[in-house]
């Protein structure tokens, strides 16, 4: 079993870098895609990029969408269904926690719970 993860950001480079970081920390075996920025590469969110990213990481065990803010959140919510869930979590920490959990073969609910725990994780 492997849950897919899509990072949705207002910024293309931000989503791509967080995806790199999460893959490095969480293991490379997790289907992880970045869908950041508008179609033209500027700031914004592209539903077409999000749809393609979901299709890319979906292995049949569910997909977690992690948005950063604004249009990323609203665009993510357009794709909500039974096996595609939006995680209301910190973008960087949530992405890493979800990737680690998905890499361990956890089911969708457990990956979501792991991402949500990142919200209360203290740094100091």
């Amino acid at each position: 079993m492997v849950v897919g993860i899509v990072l949705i950001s207002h910024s293309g480079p931000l989503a791509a870098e967080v995806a790199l970081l999460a893959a490095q920390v969480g293991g490379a075996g997790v289907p992880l895609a970045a869908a950041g920025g508008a179609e033209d590469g500027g700031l914004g969110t592209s539903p077409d990029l999000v749809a393609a990213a979901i299709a890319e990481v979906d292995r049949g065990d569910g997909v977690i969408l992690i948005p950063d803010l604004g249009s990323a959140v609203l665009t993510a919510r357009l794709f909500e269904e039974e096996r595609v869930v939006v995680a209301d979590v910190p973008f960087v920490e949530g992405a890493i926690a979800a990737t680690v959990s998905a890499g361990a073969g956890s089911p969708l609910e457990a990956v979501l719970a792991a991402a949500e725990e990142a919200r209360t994780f203290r740094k100091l």
Partner: protein
Amino acid sequence: MDTAFFTAWIEESARRVAAEKDWLTGLDAAIGDADHGTNLDRGFTAVVQTLAAKEPDTPAALLNLVGVTLIRKVGGASGPLYGTAFREMSKTLGDDAEVSPAGLCDALDAGLAGVQKLGSAAEGDKTMVDALAPAVRELRRALQEGAEPREATGAAASAARAGAKATIPMQARRGRASYLGERSVGHEDPGAASAAIILTALATVAAR
């Protein structure tokens, strides 16, 4: 109101959004990310091009196409929000070729409900809901009192503009401006402003 009426509404909305593009972006520069006018203009321009290529057969099909196109092309938060509004409106209309004034009111109500659900926004949060909600209420009141569509949509547009102006002293609780806290006070919400523009376009077309 037939498909041609709704097409005219969308074209008038596109014309007004293009004319007010810089003003909307300026409002967004004060409390957001300075792209609302540009984004919405891009979306409506794409909508007009799509409709010019092939006009759908029914009001419902037209509004659904408008919604889908806005979601795909706007690029900012207003894309999913307006896109959802038009798609939820579409769902209430079935295959009817003609929409009654009461049917239009129900459709707008469904569009408002879709926006509120997607954005988790209520009146007073300093969002487009602050223009849309009073407009739908005013439209229903006017129609129930027997007003003609041109008067009723005119009253709704006035309520939307008043609702948008009433966002100026509000502190944002939803959307990008909510990150600014008290700094969001003193500025008109760009989403409420564009919602008032789109409802003013509706009244303009209804008065023709």
